[in-house]
């Protein structure tokens, strides 16, 4: 490993297997990324002494020093713009945006600078920036703390976008992203931060494309982030009625694994896509259309979308009315199963 000669750090990266919550798995991935690449940096609001409002960067400043893990002033455009300059200087910034909804002030830097610098400079100034972002709803947060931004980033040429659904994936996808030479938006399902799972540090598995989280032959449920575990619950419920649901964890939202989608739906011949963002022009449309393009001849029903409504994400007390819940997903499944060509 060429990195070994560059690092001045003493600790080694993790090996073996460990039971970890998602937030701890991400913390471990950050620590190991910082350990392995002395040019990796963590920056953002409150990521230093506090260790982040979700404690994702807990202990990192103590261990790696305030020059590698540092608090910035409160300005998201500033954080992302500074990251561009640090990348130009040969660093691999891993900025955090404190909450999904506070990415909006940084959209200009992300879309017009980070996503385009490699193109603009014909590869001379790559942008190895891993943008971490606690994402999605589910914890009754205040306004603008529950946004799903995959629809935005998945459209922007020059970005890559990934969302892990469990601790093992989170660890390895983040380690992977932190070595990629292109900008990656890493969307962390904040409502799953405290969910535990086994992380096998030595065996990442295939880190590209989607994964089948549960096999089934009657219908494919496509989801990402926090909706994956909800879909797994729904699959359990459907199984009681004899419906065998396959759950496809999309993981990469840009590029989307069209082949993985096609492979699954070619077998099940029916699909429902689930996401938290509003339906109109959400990523579900792209997923549905990709499935339709690949499986038109075999598809038994139009792909169904079970999503948030075309309304602003509401206050905590209305969150469960807004988010796709098990009932709504089951209704969607039912519509697809009962569909008859008109």
């Amino acid at each position, binding site marked *: 490993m060429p990195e070994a000669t560059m690092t001045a750090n003493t600790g080694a990266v993790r090996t073996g297997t460990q039971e970890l919550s998602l937030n701890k798995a991400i913390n471990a991935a950050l620590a190991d990324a910082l350990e392995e690449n002395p040019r990796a940096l963590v920056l953002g609001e*409150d990521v230093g002494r*506090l260790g982040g409002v979700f404690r994702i960067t807990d202990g990192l400043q103590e261990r790696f020093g305030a020059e590698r893990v540092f608090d910035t002033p409160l300005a998201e455009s500033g954080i992302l713009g500074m990251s561009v300059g640090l990348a130009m200087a040969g660093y691999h910034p891993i900025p955090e945006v404190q909450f999904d909804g506070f990415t909006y002030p940084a959209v200009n830097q992300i879309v017009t600078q980070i996503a385009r610098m490699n193109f603009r400079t014909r590869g001379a100034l790559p942008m190895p920036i891993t943008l971490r972002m606690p994402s999605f709803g589910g914890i009754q947060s205040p306004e603008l703390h529950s946004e799903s931004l995959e629809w935005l980033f998945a459209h922007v040429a020059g970005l890559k976008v990934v969302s892990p659904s469990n601790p093992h994936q989170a660890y390895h996808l983040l380690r992977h992203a932190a070595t990629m030479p292109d900008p990656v938006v890493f969307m962390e399902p904040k409502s799953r931060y405290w969910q535990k799972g086994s992380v096998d540090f030595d065996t990442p598995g295939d880190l590209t494309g989607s994964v089948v989280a549960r096999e089934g032959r009657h219908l494919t449920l496509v989801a990402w982030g926090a909706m994956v575990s909800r879909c797994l619950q729904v699959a359990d419920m459907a199984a009681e009625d004899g419906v065998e649901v396959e759950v496809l964890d999309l993981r990469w939202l840009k590029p989307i694994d069209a082949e993985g989608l096609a492979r699954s739906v070619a077998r099940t011949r029916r699909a429902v896509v689930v996401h938290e963002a509003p339906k109109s022009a959400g990523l579900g449309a792209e997923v549905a259309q990709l499935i339709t393009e690949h499986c038109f001849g075999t598809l038994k029903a139009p792909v169904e979308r079970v999503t948030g409504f*075309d309304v*602003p994400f509401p206050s905590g*007390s209305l969150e469960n009315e807004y988010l796709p819940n098990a009932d709504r997903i089951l209704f969607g499944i039912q519509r697809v199963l009962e569909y008859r060509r008109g």
Partner: protein
Amino acid sequence: MSVTATPAATGALELDPQRLQADELKRLLAQMITVRHLDTSAIAWQRQGIIPGYAPMQGQEAAQVGSIAALDMTRDFVFPTYREMGAAYAAGVDMAEYMATHKATWNGGLHDPVKYRFTPIQTVIAGSALHAVGWAHGQRLDALREGREQTDLPASLIYLGDGASSQGDIHEAMNFAGVFKTPTVFFVQNNGWAISVPTEHQVAGGSVAARGAGYGLPSVAVDGNDVEAVVRAARAAVAHARSGAGAVVVEAFTYRRGPHSTSDDPGRYRSLEDERRDAGPDPIERLAERLIAADELTESEVRELWADAAAFEERTREAVAAQGPRPGAEMFEYVYQETTPVLQQQAAQWREESDHA
């Protein structure tokens, strides 16, 4: 009668020369005690599960109550952040409606912003500053349209924190306010911290007020724990804005005595000694002591104020506790003034699926 750029005279603004009368100070003390009690209680409400979260304002009572005291709430307009409970109370906002945002009943609160001239709680740091400038420019345009002189304008007051001062929108707002000479008061509560980041790592140069000069805006820095000083600074600022001379920056140095929010643990970034050293005198004790020393107030009157505050807290708590969730249909109702077919369909499907689930 055109609205063009003439940079306002720059410099430090003098405090309003008028000292406050004892009865004014007593009214302010009553307000400060009421909001202190409500604020401390709200933290308890969160622990008791009455509300899911809260952003305490302890220590900032003088800054908030004092700044509102300088306004004419029949015509000025206030743009709060998420930490302006004290300002909301002083401005006359219904407190159960205000607390609705912390109860997660409705983002921004249930209070009518037009009736109270107090916009909804803003979670986007610095998100409202430009609104305050635009609204204030609207007041200038109103006067122009109606052929009134620009010498007695309604003013907007925008609250911002030391952390917020780092956002680009604050700069754009101050520059627009400077170019258009809008009647806007930028009221900075520099409470030492933006969550875990201390002011000195946030505000290069050390003072937000000092930035005013760069925009041709007069500014004044004031002890934010001294309510009389706050009132006099804010009055001077409002008078300046009203007069048509343009916007002003007021920086009230105060201290966030509590955690950032009920989910924060300040022990991770500051010690109790830090707090004791940096907080300065308690704005409420300080005012009470001063009035008592001047024989304007008795200990028993102070006890009465606290008893009144407790009664008010109880009424508010009951109203907040009784507040049920809003009907889900409101999600669809308030997206637009004129709804759309897509939304109507979604609402219909939502209704059907909720009924059958």
